[in-house]
């Protein structure tokens, strides 16, 4: 006879679920509204989503307050784990989403935004990511990851162009493979330790002193492959440029930020203990992965002719750069990861938004692709403000002080220096120099070449509306005046990371 399970509601700590539930409820709400009255204007959904996200953000602030008072909170049979990493990454996820969603209010009408499902899926996706980061249970990670990914595949496909279907199919198929890797890897760890909770796995493994190192490594390989896919580490990156190219610029920008931070957090949770327990192999592999990813992505970015594709490679490179934080594995480096990613969100979202506002419905003859470099030739003459802002984002991405990303880069390299990874620090620095070339290339086109078509700069703001401009403005301000906020951010991030034990 089984004894009845007796669980008090308090011990479940259901409050931990609130931030994830908010977007899910929001999504359901949108679907319900559509049930009652369809064919509503997209602005309604945009604002609704924004509101939901705003509430979500507020609840996160609440969690943050609780965390700084009481430390890590667990809940729902210890499945939920609300620590500093979870809160920080959720801030980034929700914050970036809030910046993204107004981008739907474009001047030109795009197919996908007229569907309420788009927004519902979007919110589901956010919920998925939030689950993914707020747990150390591999099952929940898996579920969160897949929820988010499946929603994302659909979002990409909804752009309704040939290329976007192709992108969605590619992303989907590879994602399925990655899911297979993830479950296989989890299975091995489960077999080794009898648990799917990272902290448990760590305890058991160190208790038997990594007796089955060979199997541990095989498990790591599969998990690494699946994270590698999400984080677009070379050679698991191949989907990235195609998917970015196929999806709308706004979504591409979003994809370069949110899914990755979620994956980073999981990777950090999982690899941290392995690295600290002296699995040299992992260190070597990660080292190689980091170096190859940032270098090769940079090199491929050099030869691109389309700005969006270039930015795709550039974000691969940035991801590789940030992956170094996990390799280094100190509090400083982990804080650097978050700092970097916050700053990166502003800049990268800004630059993709710049592409987004210049997006035309139809491709002019002299352009091979939506955002080929040629399109931006002589932009300073016809649209000086836009050109300057775009240049700003490029310089920030290149890591030129005092723009946002410089501080992230600096702190990251510093963490490499402090962590004893001197050569890595140099490689990171030199990669920034290589990257300088392709960012500069765009600046060269904008500032130093003559316009190919004189149309008074209309093409650069074909899609511009007030909301879009606002978002770009926020991104630009965030990029320029980042230096004023660095100290606060750094203190905040470091405290959270440190108090979570990383």
């Amino acid at each position: 006879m089984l004894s009845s399970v007796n669980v008090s509601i308090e011990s479940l700590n259901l409050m931990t679920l609130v931030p994830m539930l908010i977007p899910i409820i929001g999504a359901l709400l949108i679907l319900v509204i559509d049930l009652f009255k369809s064919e509503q204007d997209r602005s309604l959904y945009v604002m609704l989503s924004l509101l939901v996200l705003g509430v979500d953000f507020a609840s996160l602030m609440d969690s943050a307050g609780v965390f700084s008072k009481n430390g890590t909170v667990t809940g729902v049979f210890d499945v939920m784990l609300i620590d500093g990493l979870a809160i920080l990454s959720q801030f980034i996820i929700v914050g970036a989403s809030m910046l993204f969603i107004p981008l739907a209010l474009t001047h030109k009408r795009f197919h996908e935004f007229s569907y309420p499902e788009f927004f519902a899926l979007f919110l589901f996706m956010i919920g998925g990511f939030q689950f993914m980061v707020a747990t150390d249970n591999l099952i929940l990670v898996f579920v969160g990851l897949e929820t988010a990914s499946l929603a994302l595949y659909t979002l990409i496909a909804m752009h309704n162009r040939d290329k976007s279907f192709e992108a969605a199919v590619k992303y989907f198929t590879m994602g399925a493979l990655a899911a297979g890797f993830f479950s296989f890897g989890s299975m091995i760890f489960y077999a080794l330790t009898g648990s799917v909770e990272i902290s448990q796995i760590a305890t058991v493994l160190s208790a038997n002193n990594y007796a089955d190192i060979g199997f541990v490594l095989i498990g790591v390989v599969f998990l690494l492959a699946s994270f590698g896919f999400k984080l677009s580490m070379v050679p698991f990156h191949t989907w990235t440029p195609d998917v970015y190219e196929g999806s709308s610029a706004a979504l591409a920008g979003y994809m370069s930020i949110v899914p990755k931070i979620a994956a980073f957090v999981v990777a950090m949770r999982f690899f941290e203990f392995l690295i600290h327990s002296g699995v040299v192999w992992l260190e070597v592999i990660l080292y190689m992965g980091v170096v190859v990813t940032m270098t090769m992505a940079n090199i491929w970015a050099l030869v691109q002719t389309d700005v969006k594709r270039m930015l795709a490679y550039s974000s691969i490179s940035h991801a590789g750069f940030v992956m170094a934080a996990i390799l280094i594995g100190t509090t400083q480096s982990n804080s650097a990861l978050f700092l970097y990613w916050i700053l990166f969100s502003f800049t990268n979202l800004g630059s993709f938004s710049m592409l987004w506002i210049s997006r035309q419905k139809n491709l002019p003859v002299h352009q091979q692709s939506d955002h080929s470099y040629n399109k931006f030739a002589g932009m300073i003459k016809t649209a000086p403000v836009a050109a300057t802002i775009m240049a700003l984002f490029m310089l920030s991405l290149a890591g030129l002080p005092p723009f946002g990303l410089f501080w992230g880069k600096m702190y990251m390299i510093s963490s490499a220096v402090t962590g004893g990874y001197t050569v890595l620090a140099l490689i990171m620095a030199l990669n920034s120099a290589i990257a300088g070339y392709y960012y500069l290339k765009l600046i060269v086109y904008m500032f130093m070449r003559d316009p190919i078509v004189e149309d008074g700069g209309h093409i650069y703001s074909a899609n511009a509306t007030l909301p879009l401009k606002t978002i770009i403005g926020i991104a630009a301000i965030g990029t320029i005046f980042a230096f004023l906020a660095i100290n606060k951010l750094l203190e905040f991030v470091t405290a959270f990371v440190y108090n979570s034990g990383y």
Partner: protein
Amino acid sequence: MEIGLNHYLVLSTILFAIGLVGVMRRKNLLMLFFATEILLNSVNISFAAISHYYGDLTGQMFAFFVIAIAASEVAVGLGLLIVWHKKHNNIDLDNMSTMRG
């Protein structure tokens, strides 16, 4: 011969390998999806076996989730496939490379 845990694991691994090979070799999108299903479900065998071995339910839970996710993947995947087929009248992977470089 007693069927032990290892046998299940080996079977699972073999199935996984078959799935992998299928993923690499198949040019037909539908077949490719099948391969990924094999991949995912092969793991379920192990999960169930290990779960039994430890007397712990977690593995079975995992397996259920995997099944659920596999199912939803198929839903999304087939959706994409149908749209693609509508547009291009084929589901051959080799026709799917407009973006490159």
